[in-house]
């Protein structure tokens, strides 16, 4: 028996067998499109917001958060990103601008959460077009939560919008302009920040809605900036020359992210960090 366990191939298989036993529940996949996840990996948006509520930001204090996007099958880079973000001083949370998964599988979203849950700060996501492929919409809603939502932190309201119009065959439902206008009309807070995956100048944004979206943003006196992903490259600018700043995130494999510091009515500073 002892010599059996000394056989190199058997010794190589022992850790595999052990990890198989430990993760036997995960091994039972009835379909890769099964949208469910264990309880600890469900409703992550609500759970991260509850964590954020544990460390409130007094009104008037400076807001500082990390902004990135498109984690999309870049698990090796996600590990390094977490190590880097955990060294950033004074940040309050991290935002991921969509495309958490590549193929819209629940398993992929859980893999990313396996990395991002090691952040010292909560993280929040907006849904990306890849998260809507196949059964992805059900998986995203189960694992993260609603595709349109908002929260107030300190004196800033963060508004998350599903702008993946092409995934709905440009049927006029994404972005949900009723939701966008209602959230932007909230004048009980000092500032607004809006975050979505597909930017309004992109061909994947519903062309019938881009004008009303851009107009709603321009007419909001509280809007600090609009945050996007999708393009896998950092950029910042007034895309429409109308006074609204659009910031596009780097993707995980670009191995960089930005730290945004916001104070006053609309003042902000942007720092690029490479890892």
């Amino acid at each position, binding site marked *: 028996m002892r010599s059996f366990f000394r056989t190199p191939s058997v010794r190589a298989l022992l850790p*595999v067998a052990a990890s198989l036993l430990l993760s036997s529940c*995960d091994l*039972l996949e009835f*379909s*890769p*499109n099964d949208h469910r996840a264990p309880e600890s990996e469900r409703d992550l948006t609500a759970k991260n917001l509850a964590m954020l509520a544990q460390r409130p930001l007094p009104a008037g204090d400076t807001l500082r958060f990390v902004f990135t996007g498109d984690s999309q099958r870049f*698990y090796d880079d996600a590990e390094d990103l977490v190590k880097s973000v955990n060294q950033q001083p004074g940040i309050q949370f991290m935002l991921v601008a969509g495309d958490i998964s590549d193929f819209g599988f629940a*398993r992929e979203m859980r893999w990313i959460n396996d990395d991002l849950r090691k952040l010292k700060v909560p993280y929040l996501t907006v849904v990306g077009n890849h998260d809507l492929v*196949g059964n992805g919409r*059900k998986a995203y809603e189960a694992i993260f939560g609603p595709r349109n939502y908002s929260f107030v932190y300190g004196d800033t309201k963060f508004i998350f919008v599903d702008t993946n119009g092409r995934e709905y065959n440009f049927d006029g439902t994404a972005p949900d302009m009723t939701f966008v206008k209602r959230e932007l009309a909230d004048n009980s807070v000092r500032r607004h920040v809006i975050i979505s995956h597909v930017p309004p100048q992109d061909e994947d944004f519903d062309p019938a809605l881009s004008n009303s979206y851009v107009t709603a943003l321009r007419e909001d006196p509280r809007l600090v900036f609009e945050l996007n992903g999708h393009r896998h490259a950092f950029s910042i600018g007034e895309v429409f020359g109308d006074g609204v700043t659009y910031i596009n995130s780097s993707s995980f494999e670009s191995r960089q992210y930005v730290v945004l510091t916001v104070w006053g009515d609309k003042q902000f500073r942007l720092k690029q960090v490479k890892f």
Partner: protein
Amino acid sequence: MGWIGNGVHTGLPLALCLLVNQTCAQAPEPAAGPFYLTLHVAGGTGLVALGGGYRLARQRLEPELLVGYVPRRLSGSKPLAIFTLKTTYLPWSPRLGQSRWQATPVTLGAMINYTTGQQFFLTNNSAGNYRPGYYWWSSAVRLGLLAGTRVNYGGPHQQSTTAYAELSTNDLHLVSRLTNRSLRLVDILTLGGGLKRGF
């Protein structure tokens, strides 16, 4: 691997044969007729799948068709059906002593399946409003590889019953694993198993 080897590979298989099978020198007798029915559980082909197939290549190859069921609770919307074409290869199935039991320590196989449901596309050109190649994969069709083990009970000229278990993965999980060193093999594996009844 032959039953009576005469080359450099003779030693080990023959020794193993002698350990488990005293009638090693004979060609394996058919354990059952060529047709069989399958009841399969999990393994990415549905909560349960029913089907059957026809044994080929002196019982070494088992092609089969399975129809799997994914209930509403798992799909999150309408129940789904998964149609799977699968072939299992049985390289070595020694009889255990003089008993009616037969073991296949290792089985290898491949499969292709199609999942029903409006949310899945055969290619992204056939659905929605995408330019060709926008999504390079098909969300409805999965390719899979599997490795497993099995035992079989039943003598010659009788119905036989087979119980098997297998680990499989699919093409997209494999792409994730091959492009990320931090994903472990176990992360992309799926356990499945079932029963086969020959007739």
